[in-house]
């Protein structure tokens, strides 16, 4: 009974606070990450060779270095150069850049799958490259990238838990503090796990809903 009261009065309010911080981390990181991914993916496919090369290097670096290490660099490393990011900002920057690198790969794949003929048709109508990308290619490519990019967003929800490593106390951080005070590791992290599961499920539903809404005649999936 005492345990139940502790959980109800101390654990849950604290975890909800953490959950709120997590959401505040996830939403800008997911949006920024996707935006970076679109730009980088498009550059890798359509930009001139040197620019595409730079975008490739970006992906190689941010996909190749463990996220925790990237977080530490933003938070502990930059001060050496006189640049100070708050724990929250370091986390958002690290998550966005890492997520962008992964998104760019899904977007690149989707861009490559658009038939060349449609680009010829757009060019023949007098579209500029950028206008063609914006109104012909991306609307189709993003639809195709959605399952992969959605997966990346779900992944981001979970790796946002790394933010507590740079003292941005979100859901996992709160859980860790509570657990080390009360030694109720099992109970508290079970609850934390359920919170993440709910977040991920909601995101999954939302993404599935978007996929259905954006599906096009002739491209929908028919279950056999």
């Amino acid at each position, binding site marked *: 009974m005492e345990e139940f009261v502790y959980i109800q009065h101390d654990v849950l309010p604290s975890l909800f606070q953490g959950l709120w911080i997590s959401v505040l981390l996830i939403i800008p990181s997911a949006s920024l990450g996707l935006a970076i991914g679109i730009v980088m993916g498009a550059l890798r496919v359509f930009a001139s060779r040197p620019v595409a090369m730079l975008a490739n290097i970006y992906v190689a670096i941010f996909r190749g270095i463990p996220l925790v290490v990237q977080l530490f660099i933003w938070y502990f490393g930059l001060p050496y150069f006189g640049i100070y990011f708050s724990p929250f900002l370091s986390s958002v920057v690290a998550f966005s850049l890492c997520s962008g690198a992964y998104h760019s790969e899904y977007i690149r794949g989707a861009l490559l799958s658009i*038939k060349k*003929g*449609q680009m*010829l*048709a*757009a*060019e*023949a*109508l*007098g*579209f*500029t490259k950028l*206008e063609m990308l914006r*109104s*012909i290619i991306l*609307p*189709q490519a993003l*639809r195709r990238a959605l399952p992969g990019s959605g997966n990346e967003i779900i992944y981001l929800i979970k790796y946002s838990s790394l933010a507590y490593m740079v003292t941005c106390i979100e859901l996992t951080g709160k859980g860790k503090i509570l657990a080390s005070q009360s030694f109720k590791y099992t109970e508290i992290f079970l609850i934390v796990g359920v919170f993440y599961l709910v977040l991920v499920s909601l995101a999954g539903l939302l993404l599935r809903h978007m996929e259905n809404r954006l599906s*096009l*005649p*002739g*491209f929908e999936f028919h279950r056999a």
Partner: protein
Amino acid sequence: MEAFMARSENDSVLRVENIRKSFGDKEILKGLSLSVKKGEVKVIIGPSGGGKSTLLQCINFLVIPDEGEVWLEGEKINHGKKRELYAYRQQVGMIFQDFNLFDHLDALENVQIALVRVKKMDKAKARERASAELRRVGLAEHASQYPAELSGGQKQRVSIARALAMDPKVMLLDEPTSALDPELIGEVHAVIKDLVANGMTMLMATHQIGFASVLADEIIFMEDGTIVEQGPPTKILLDAECARTKEFCAKITHISGDS
């Protein structure tokens, strides 16, 4: 006399001079020249791989020629200048063998989008214009269907409407019926005939020789990247000078025997 010469030069809507294009070692176009006058229909025939498509794509610089010049209404096109290139392409309608409709847009939006995004036309106006063009090709009731829901013939008619909406000065048609089932060819031919009747200037590559002979002011026989022979349909089809032209025409007429 000189003034007269200049006038007749300017008479051609489209003039192409000495176009050369190689892909690697293979020379696809070996210095081709031709011109199309206002309201004139020229049809290019010739075996596949002879460079017909490449020529048409070079004319609006979807493929950049290695050498040669393109003139529209007496103005030389400088394709290196992007603004000039984009402005030029708006005036040259292009129809592709495999339609190349935009898969994510319905028929109406396919016709409308370039008006809005390229011509910067107001959306409502563009919509009106797009509906009018769809009506013109007989697809008013299919306006809200997506490419995947249309037949090949309907798709090609949408693509013709899409090109027409831009008010092109000349149209390039690259085998517009080659990807169609035989029973769908007629509806596309009817639309093209209608355009010709309304005075559209055209350069068309096709294998439909019967159709070509009815429409064309001149037939151009092209093989191995050069123009072998050109002249009025009756001459090319029935009384060609070059043996190779004769042979090709005999074969293709025999096979298709279309109208």
